[in-house]
């Protein structure tokens, strides 16, 4: 009896320990599922990994030239996004490549140039830089330099990005701003399963090469009722997720959920209504939606995980001050990661979490 008590005591202690650990490593945001569905038909509960898997499944089944490849893709990929696809479509359509990002990107460009639909997976966006030359100098310029004779529009490069709680320097970066500087590319970041499926299908069918950056923390933590049908969401269009009149908040990927929570805090504590915009498409980006919103509210907060200097928020801020200067009530504010590499144990301090965003919001409101 005594030993049983002691055992249960230990068990409680262990569970508590595990729970504490889980709390410590839990995500820095609350996930807000999409209220709106692009289709009224049948849906399935999916997390973002399954939604991406589903989008690729639909592509492979409807497009016989479509190919999916990358490091460790054959067994499903390290994030399991390609799970079961090799068994379904064969080893010549879903396959491993050697461990070489520039090779994967170049191979994809060649496939697309020869008429195939190429879906390339880079294991982590942090490792996309060896492929930078292929993507920026080759993929982005293929149509332009040949006067429209050749292009690689059927290429889509998928890469997991963003903070994940324990990724450190090389499993946490958000490189969207690097690629936003390359005219000819399209850069897209989804915020959840419904958006991911629609945007990925758009990217795959887009006649321009696309870089699809998937916030890796959402793979399993984001769950929504995703429509079963094949649907596309337009690229270059932002979505207003929450309407308001006091402040416009702009983000993409995981950070959208941080801002949604901040907007809720603001409405509870301050009684102000904030407009939250998910940019979705970084290049080209939806100036119209953003500028119209800013003209309505007069205050802007832009937030992204990537470092401040030359982050994509800088481009948005510059455009806003140019187009909406006389409508602004306060300076355009950016809440972003610090100008430092992404740290491991300091991740909670590095991220632009809800408290930092809320602080910036109060300053903006009281400016």
């Amino acid at each position, binding site marked *: 009896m005594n030993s049983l008590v002691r055992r249960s005591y230990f068990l409680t202690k262990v569970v508590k320990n595990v729970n504490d650990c889980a709390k410590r490593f839990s995500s820095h945001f609350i996930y807000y599922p999409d*209220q709106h569905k692009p289709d009224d038909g049948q849906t399935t509960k999916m997390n973002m990994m399954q939604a991406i898997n589903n989008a690729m499944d639909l592509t492979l089944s409807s497009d016989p030239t479509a190919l999916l490849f990358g490091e460790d893709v054959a067994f499903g990929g390290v994030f399991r996004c390609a799970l079961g696809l090799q068994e379904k479509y064969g080893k010549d359509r879903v396959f491993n490549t050697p461990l070489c990002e520039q090779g994967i990107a*170049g191979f994809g460009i*060649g496939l697309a140039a020869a008429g195939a639909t190429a879906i390339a997976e880079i294991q982590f966006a942090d490792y996309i830089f060896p492929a930078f030359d292929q993507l920026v100098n080759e993929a982005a310029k293929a149509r332009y330099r040949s*006067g429209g004779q050749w292009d690689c529009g059927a290429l889509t490069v998928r890469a997991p990005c963003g903070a994940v709680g324990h990724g450190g320097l090389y499993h946490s970066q958000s490189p969207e701003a690097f690629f936003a500087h390359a*005219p000819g590319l399209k850069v897209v970041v989804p915020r959840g399963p419904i958006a991911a499926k629609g945007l990925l299908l758009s990217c795959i069918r887009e006649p321009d090469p696309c870089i699809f950056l998937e916030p890796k923390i959402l793979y399993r933590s984001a769950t929504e009722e995703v429509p079963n049908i*094949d649907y596309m969401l337009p690229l270059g269009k932002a979505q*207003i997720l*929450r309407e308001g009149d006091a402040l416009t908040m702009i983000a993409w990927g995981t950070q959208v959920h941080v801002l949604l929570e901040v907007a809720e805090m603001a409405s509870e504590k301050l009684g102000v209504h904030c407009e939250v915009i998910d940019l979705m498409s970084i290049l080209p980006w939806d*100036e119209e939606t953003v*500028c119209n919103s800013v003209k309505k509210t007069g205050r802007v907060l832009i937030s992204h995980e990537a470092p401040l200097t030359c982050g994509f928020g800088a481009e948005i801020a510059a455009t806003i001050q140019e187009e909406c200067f006389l409508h602004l009530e306060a300076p355009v504010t950016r809440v972003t990661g610090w100008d430092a590499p992404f740290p491991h144990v300091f991740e909670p301090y590095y991220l632009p979490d809800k408290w930092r965003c809320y602080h910036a919001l109060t300053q903006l409101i009281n400016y």
Partner: protein
Amino acid sequence: MALKTGVSFLKLTSLRQTCRVLSTHIRPEVQQNGAKNADFPGARAPYTGEIKFLDENSYEPIPIYRVLDNNGKAADKSHEPVLDREALRHMYKTMTQLNQMDKILYESQRQGRISFYMTNYGEEGIHIGSAAALDPKDLVYAQYREVGVLLYRGMTVQELVDQCYGNHRDPGKGRQMPVHYGCKRRSVVTISSPLGTQMPQAVGSAYAYKRRAGNENCVICYFGEGAASEGDAHAAFNFAATLSCPIVFLCRNNGYAISTPSNEQYRGDGIAARGPAMGLRTLRVDGTDTLAVYNAVKQARHIAVSENKPILVEAMCYRVGHHSTSDDSSAYRSLDEIAKWTKDESPIQKMKLYLEQKGHWDDKADNEWLKEARNNVLLSIQEAEKQKKPNWREMLEDVYYDMPPRIHLCTTLCLQWEPEVIAVALMFLAGKLSKFEVVDWNGRMPAHNAWWDMFVEDITMELLEDICHQVLDLYSPQTQSSGGESPPLPPPSQNNRPEKITGGTPPKNSSPPAPRSTTTPLKNGTDHPSVTEPPKSTTLTQTYSTSYAGMPSYSHTQQYSGPPVAPLPPPPMPPTLPPMVFSEPPPARFPPVNVPPPNYFPPPPSLHPPRPAPSNAAHPHTHPLPPRPYYPP
């Protein structure tokens, strides 16, 4: 006691098992069959008891396959390719045509007629030998020194020269530097400047070819020994081997990467030595021997197509010319060194001797052909200089399939007209929209027929209406037809509206009816659709020796620095066009940017059923928003 021992043994065993299960250290189960052969996942090889490091001297150098000796004689008759008289003559004529083009275009750069050029001296054999061995449908990924392949595929000198001049007939629309050719119709992927990037791309295309039903084609990828140092080269070899792609890698090892000699570029037995190490079937061939290259590529192609296997061919040669017009190779190599390769190892000379021995060619034919080849180039240059530049709008086309608003809005009008003209047009539009007409105004002079004559002279009503329509097109939502909410303007002269000007031959009536005043420049920069550049008055002095010296005469650079001399004498028209020259229609124009592609947005209705009635006010994006102006007043 025995029981106790047994129990403790069992305990120990289970402990060991637990340790093994818990251990994260995974030991491969090596089957050491008789301790002779290992069976590691990464290598199956015999064991040895000896430490022996391998280096480049551990193997014999890879031999160089050749058919012709320096006198153009085939040592082994059985290796002479089965090519008829016309085919051989065509090969030789393409080589010499290439040579003549190089000489004249090199000099034309020196005269400032084109901005840049790269010659192909000493590598003609590789180009023509490989091109002749390929199927015309085999996809070519070239580096930048393979223009002979394009010539052999039927690209005319005129097309090549047009690209170098960047005139409106250049399919690349003058966007790239000279020598960046490309032709989809002839399966030649447009060349880009970064080195080695074409290699993994070629592998990707080969994989796509392999998957085509009944595929009978392969991909050939040209690169230099310098480019083989790029990471992309390694990636390409590795991908091609692991993914079994039908591709022929053809390395032109010409000894120099700009100024860096190959002994500072790599160690080991050249590029060919890397082939077997990476699982590629490999052959080394004499690149100055056109027939050897032909045989090698013919067989390589056969293996690639029939077995879906990658092949590496290293063609040894010597870069006789400078790297480019921006390089002077006398700074890093001696003239004696060059002379050796131009005299004894000239691919053109070897081919000529071979043809003469076969009785297919003689000096008379040679002189006549060289004259004709030279005239081809000179006439092409004359013609290219007469051509207009591409339309300025081409600067921003082809970045994306559809021109995004960010490019579109700021450029379509404002690059085209002076700000005053746009201002007048917008005030005119405002007047029209508010049904307000300016009849009289302060400062009116008798000469002023309309109010805008105060600001800019010579603006016609047609021009103003044209600009107004462009403005309305820009600001109206794309889904709407542009005439939907048009103001009650008089019907515009549609045929005068500037349509997208084709890069090929812009229709004459596509220009807006802007009266061109000599006093008031209405337009920014150049008039559209195109600018005519008057042909320069300097003549192309024809000082080239008819016999192939194989190298550019470096002293020529001084020759053209003088003032312009006599106008270009019209060279005699060649009586008949050479066999590989054929005319082709001007390149087709892609559809106008505002028209969405047929298979693109909006998606089929089945995919996007009509959206539900708004139910949640917190998510306004669910409602189809009414189209609103971009920047509300």
